[in-house]
């Protein structure tokens, strides 16, 4: 059983397009995250939601809009894609209390041409 899943795994698109990445977790966690890994492998937090509420927004351009329809899902919509948006985007989830461990999805490699 997949714990944290992301779709699609690969996304190739043209500059200026709008695209979405979906994330779902079946762990019963109430906090979810989006991280961006750039071409140099550096990972940085973008957003976090707790029980469908935005709790972290790390100075990400407003072309990026996360949406959490329920606490098992956190989607990332990106408008007007730019070349610099090319990266691997990871979703992660964690339960409040407990082990404080974040579990990551397989990542979505976004390539903007």
């Amino acid at each position, binding site marked *: 059983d997949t714990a944290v899943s992301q779709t699609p795994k690969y996304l190739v698109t043209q500059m200026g397009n709008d695209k979405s990445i979906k994330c779902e977790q079946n762990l019963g966690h109430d*906090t979810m*995250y989006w*991280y961006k890994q750039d071409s*140099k*492998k*550096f*990972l*940085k*937090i973008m957003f*976090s939601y*707790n029980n469908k509420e935005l*709790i*972290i927004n*790390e100075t990400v351009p407003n072309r990026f809009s996360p949406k959490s329809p329920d606490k098992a899902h956190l989607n990332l919509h990106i408008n007007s894609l730019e070349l610099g948006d090319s990266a*691997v985007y*990871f979703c*992660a989830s*964690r339960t409040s209390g407990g*082990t*404080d*461990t*974040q*579990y*990551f999805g*397989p*990542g979505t*490699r976004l390539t903007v041409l």
Partner: protein
Amino acid sequence: AQTVTQSQPEMSVQEAETVTLSCTYDTSESDYYLFWYKQPPSRQMILVIRQEAYKQQNATENRFSVNFQKAAKSFSLKISDSQLGDAAMYFCAYRPPGGYNKLIFGAGTRLAVHP
């Protein structure tokens, strides 16, 4: 600002040997968590080991252990009896107290394992 530094961009080890990956971090907090994550070529982020700052005992998970030096703000990962499957990027991560638990990552160390 809280930062995590991994000073070794690349390391290599012979199969069955031991290797240590370095990590230092900067914080003024006393209660926090530290993690090592492994990212193989499949790019999946896999938790290797975690350490609570309030615990003096170093964490151990099978062939993986840490040397946690709180005063020195150092958190190194030791891999014993290295295996070919250990080849991957290794990321050190710091989780501050509160703050909704975001992880702050180091730049990573690429580990090669030679047969």
